[in-house]
């Protein structure tokens, strides 16, 4: 899945996702990606977030919406992302998932759930500082 958040020079925000979903899914299955607040969410006054992982589990917790609402009240993007992941972990300790967050001033962060085989989550950032699509990563 690709999840993307874009913030314009004037603070406008858009978010989106695209995916072909889970392998060998039952025909008709839709994951979290197209669900506003789960796959991604954006509000220009607060921030944007996008998620990836086991959509069957993640969509129930609306992680992208939670992260944006936390950024609305001033929470740092990294902390907002971590809180959204921990909210899911509380009920599904072994779930596979990650999230990216960015607020309207251009600060950003990411978080993921540590499970065997997944201890680091890569993401890409491009702004006038990086001047290129810079690959970064976060420890789960």
């Amino acid at each position, binding site marked *: *899945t*690709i*999840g*993307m*958040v*874009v*913030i314009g*020079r004037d603070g*406008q*925000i*858009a*978010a*989106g*996702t*695209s*995916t*072909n*979903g*889970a*392998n060998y*899914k039952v*025909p*008709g*299955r*839709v*994951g*979290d*990606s*197209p*669900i*506003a607040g789960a*796959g*991604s969410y*954006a509000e220009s006054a607060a921030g*944007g977030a*996008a*998620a*990836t992982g*086991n*959509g069957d589990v993640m969509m129930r917790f609306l992680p992208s919406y939670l992260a944006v609402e936390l950024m609305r009240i001033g929470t740092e993007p990294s902390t907002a992302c971590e809180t959204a992941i921990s909210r899911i972990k509380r009920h599904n300790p072994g779930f*596979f998932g*990650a999230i*990216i967050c*960015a607020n309207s*001033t*251009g*600060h*950003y962060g990411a978080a993921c759930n540590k*499970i*065997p085989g*997944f201890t680091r989550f*890569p*993401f*890409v*950032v*491009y*702004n*006038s500082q990086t001047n290129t*699509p810079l*690959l970064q990563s976060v420890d789960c």
Partner: protein
Amino acid sequence: RATLPLVINTWEFQHAADAAWRALQAGGSVMDAVEKGCSRCEAEQCDGSVGFGGHPDERGETTLDAMIMNGNTMEVGAVGDLRRIKNAISVARAVMEHTEHTLLVGESASQFAENMGFTAEDLTTNNSISVFTQWLKDNCQPNNRKNVSPDPSKYCGPYKPGPTLKHRRRREIDIHAHD
């Protein structure tokens, strides 16, 4: 130091970030940038979890989910289980811009896309067909079924409702097999 504009996206998909950034530099809106960035992954399939030719379902078909959200107007366009159309996020944007709805799914979403001028084509590839064929040979393992018979941890379907297992089947997580 935080600066604007900013593009951030999941996984190592640098081409997608580059496409989004170019859209902004060309004077496009943040919506144009998200659409262009995600479209780049749909065309290149990125790590196989985006776009055509990846993650076949139990019938071997690849179907797509996508959404786009305008953080200014709070408008959303989304498609789920989109069939035979490659440009999922553009169809999602068309849902937002050409209907009063938010989410369209399945075969009807594909017909809406064709009416909006999108090309219908087969989303399977030699790779997805061989992946699917191998899955059938492996008795359809892994799969997403539970509490059915025959035992889904051993056999393919068709399945009928079966006894509810007391403890959940332990399932290996393939981080490349998800949304």
